[in-house]
């Protein structure tokens, strides 16, 4: 059994810091190699490690490809990083591949877009409450000028009650359990460490591709040697971090649901929640629709050990095109049940996102959201995930599942929550969603965009030894 070096892995990869609800993300530009290295030397001791049980506050750090360039990695080292990381999310090909069209097109992004100041680093700050978070942030910020760091954007987060997201649904339930980290889970949900952390075996029982750097003359490094002689395994204990700022239009979402479920000109609250739950694949409490087909059941709110094949292969409970079934089809792909599970588990991600913006109401109960008229301002999700192969994990989910209009035999529909329907070849330019029934399915059309991508980038979050290498070279 592999020993996972938690003390070298940054903490946010190992856990989501649920006990530190206050959080800020700072997007930084770095002025020069020398100043950035001095900053790294200073901040290195503050970086939270995966081995810390319940840290009182947490600081984690990741870099873009451009950032690693500023930090002085040479061309041949940079070339050992994967293509996706080098090209980022905004090339014309990536726009097509990820489906960022219309209002989500990268040239409309607030940060990370092709015409904007390049982001070099992502500083992640976590604290138990807003006051201590402000202190932590101020402490960090006082170094910015001295080390030629520019704050490109500060992303403040919001704490939403009952672990809900803005539409009113319990979020972040399905998470893979990393093999070897000590937590017990079902075999179906236990995934090889190398799917998320470089330097360990992945779901194919192979070591993921890892970036390599030269051993520097006269300098020591605690990085392990790479397979290639004279090179060091820079990737060991690191992970690729995908960041997407996704604005959620709560008003448009619930108004659409209301208008489409209206009976004789009157809103039907129960029908609304039912349809929204079918789109999500879970009830507002988090209870899976395929387990509780008729109504919400709070005793099932964190239930995640379920499949579709046995009770719901046709999608009569949880539609094939629903958000959670698309993004993790579990045992219901076009192969045997166990094969399907095995394939689906080769496309998992570790989610670490946080919400931002003021919730429409505190309870986030659909009924109250509906009555509330408090839609002012922007709100949404900072989607953050970790994976060892961006192309096989995040990008695959986004392209082959979320935005695949033909997924598993569907005729023409994308993810009802986060799908993008503005593909230039698409004659419809709007969303569709079918709810299978015993007989003719119910087909919803003219679905507007409920989410809009506002920014994003690919980062690499190095292990602690790799950070030390960057600081010292």
């Amino acid at each position, binding site marked *: 059994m592999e020993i996972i070096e938690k003390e070298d892995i940054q903490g946010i990869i190992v856990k989501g810091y649920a006990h530190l609800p206050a959080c800020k993300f700072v997007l930084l530009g770095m002025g020069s190699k020398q100043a950035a290295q001095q900053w790294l030397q200073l901040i290195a001791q503050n970086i939270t490690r995966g081995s810390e049980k319940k840290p009182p506050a947490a600081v984690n750090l990741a870099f873009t490809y451009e950032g690693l360039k500023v930090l002085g990695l040479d061309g041949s080292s940079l*070339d050992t990083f994967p*293509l996706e990381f*080098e*090209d980022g999310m905004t090339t*014309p*090909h990536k726009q*097509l*591949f990820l489906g960022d069209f219309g209002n989500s097109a990268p040239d409309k992004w607030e940060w990370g877009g092709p015409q904007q100041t390049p982001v070099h680093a992502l500083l992640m700050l976590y604290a138990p409450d807003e006051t201590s978070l402000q202190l932590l942030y101020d402490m960090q910020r006082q170094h910015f000028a001295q080390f030629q760091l520019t704050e490109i954007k500060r992303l403040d987060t919001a704490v939403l009650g009952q672990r809900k997201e803005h539409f009113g649904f319990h979020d972040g339930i399905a998470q893979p359990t990393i093999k070897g980290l000590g937590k017990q889970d079902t075999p179906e949900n236990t995934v090889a460490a190398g799917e998320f952390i470089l330097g360990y075996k992945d779901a*194919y029982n*192979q070591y993921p*591709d890892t970036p390599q750097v030269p051993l520097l003359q006269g300098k020591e490094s605690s990085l392990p040697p790479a397979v290639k002689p004279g090179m060091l395994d820079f990737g060991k204990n690191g992970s690729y971090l995908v960041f997407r700022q996704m604005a959620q239009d709560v008003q448009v979402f619930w108004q659409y649901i209301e208008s489409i479920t209206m009976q004789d000109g009157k809103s039907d609250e129960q029908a609304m929640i039912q349809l929204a739950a079918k789109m999500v694949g879970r009830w507002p409490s988090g209870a899976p629709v395929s387990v509780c087909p008729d109504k919400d059941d709070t005793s099932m709110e964190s239930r995640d050990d379920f499949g579709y094949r046995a009770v719901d292969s*046709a999608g009569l409970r949880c539609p094939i095109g629903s958000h959670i079934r698309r993004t993790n089809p579990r045992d219901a792909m*076009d*192969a045997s049940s166990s*094969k399907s599970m*095995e*394939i689906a588990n*080769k496309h998992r991600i570790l989610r670490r996102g946080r919400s931002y913006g003021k919730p429409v109401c505190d309870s986030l109960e659909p009924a109250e959201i509906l009555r509330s008229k408090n839609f002012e301002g922007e709100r949404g999700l900072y989607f953050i995930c970790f994976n060892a192969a961006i*192309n*096989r994990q995040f*990008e*695959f989910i986004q*392209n*082959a599942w979320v935005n*695949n*209009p*033909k997924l*598993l*035999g569907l*005729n023409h529909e994308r993810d009802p929550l986060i799908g993008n329907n503005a*593909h230039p*070849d*698409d004659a419809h330019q709007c969303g569709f969603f079918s709810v*299978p*029934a*015993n*007989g*003719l*399915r*119910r*087909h919803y*059309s003219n679905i507007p965009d409920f989410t809009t991508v506002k920014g994003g980038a690919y980062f690499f979050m190095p292990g602690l030894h790799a950070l030390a290498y960057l600081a010292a070279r």
Partner: protein
Amino acid sequence: MTTHGALSVIAGIQPGALPQLTELLGRIEATKEAADGIIPFTGMPDVHFARFVLLLNRTDVQGNVIPDSLSFVTDYDGSETAHLQQLISIGGQGLWQVFSYCANFPAGNYDAAKLQAYLLQHKQKNATFYVGVSGRSVQQIRNEQLLRDEIEQFADASQPLFAGKNPLAIRQQIIEHVFAMPAFGWAHSPEPGMSGGAAFAHWGKLVLVILLVLVLLPVWLPLLIIWVLIVLVQELRDRPRPNVVTKQHLRELTERETGMVQAQFSAVGNLKPGSVRLHTVTFLLGLTNFLAPYLFSKGKLSGIPTVHFARWLIIDDNRQMLFLSNYDGNSESYLRDFINIAAKQLTLLFSHTMGYPETRLMLFGGAAHAREFMDWARCYQTVSQVWYSANKNVSVKNIYTNSAIRNGLYGKPGEEEALKWLRLI
């Protein structure tokens, strides 16, 4: 029900003509869907897919240079004669321009007969041709998608009307609606099936071969075992060199994947040296070609549910293998399907090419070494300069469901059957 053919033409490129040819192919790609394009593929009703691929910078296992060539391939309905006629009458002028950059092309002005003779002369035999759309024509696939779209729209619009009605009544209303539309006149009869004679020939051939195989079992089984052992010895001696894939190569390949539903794959590489490998691969490709219509007749190639058409060729004096396919999705998910679903079957066919990840008994290892397999596939994948698809927004799965929807318009089903049919929509 239609038969399908796969035309493969490979011609050497005249010295110095590559820049102009590349430029011309670029223009053909840009205008492939225009009615007045250089080669107006949309005007050829029997063409499912077509592509031009430049085969460049190749050396064989001995290090000899293989001359640069152009390959032109189509997947079509019906007979080769009729296809060539259509190809030349509609795209002849454009094809003339293209092949005038190729070796031994007749000089002078456009001449349809000379063009046809040239194409036939440079036609190559496919070792394996796989059809994922079963006996369906371009037109049938297109029509049945239109039919499904119409039924969907009608069903959506009639939602209030259908409320509370039983499935048989709903079905009846859908049928009446469709049959009242002249555009769907063709839908008044079910999908054309195999004729009695054709079915007899189809299954008779299989029965005959199985009988022959059984009768000759005592002869071929010992030979097979010896043969497999010889290959195993070669496998044990093989030391595949790592395949180096440059980022620029990957970008060139993936940037061309702009389709919403479908994509293509072209790959060319050297066969491993020696006659054992050559005979093994020739036999296995031949066997697959024979068995595919029986084993993979439901739109799944070894379990992979997304392939419309695929073909394998052994080219350049038995030195190289050329593989071309048309599928749903993107190349990343396509190659992942290979590894996840059909590793053994594809290893059996591809392990005879250079650089393929280490195998045992032609089944084990190979594509199961996921990372090495991806590198191998990307390394030998090559750019398709022109790629055309007639029904570009229809998936293989759609094609089968659409036919099932059409076939459900006939007969007298019971309520349960009618329910099942309604669920397809």
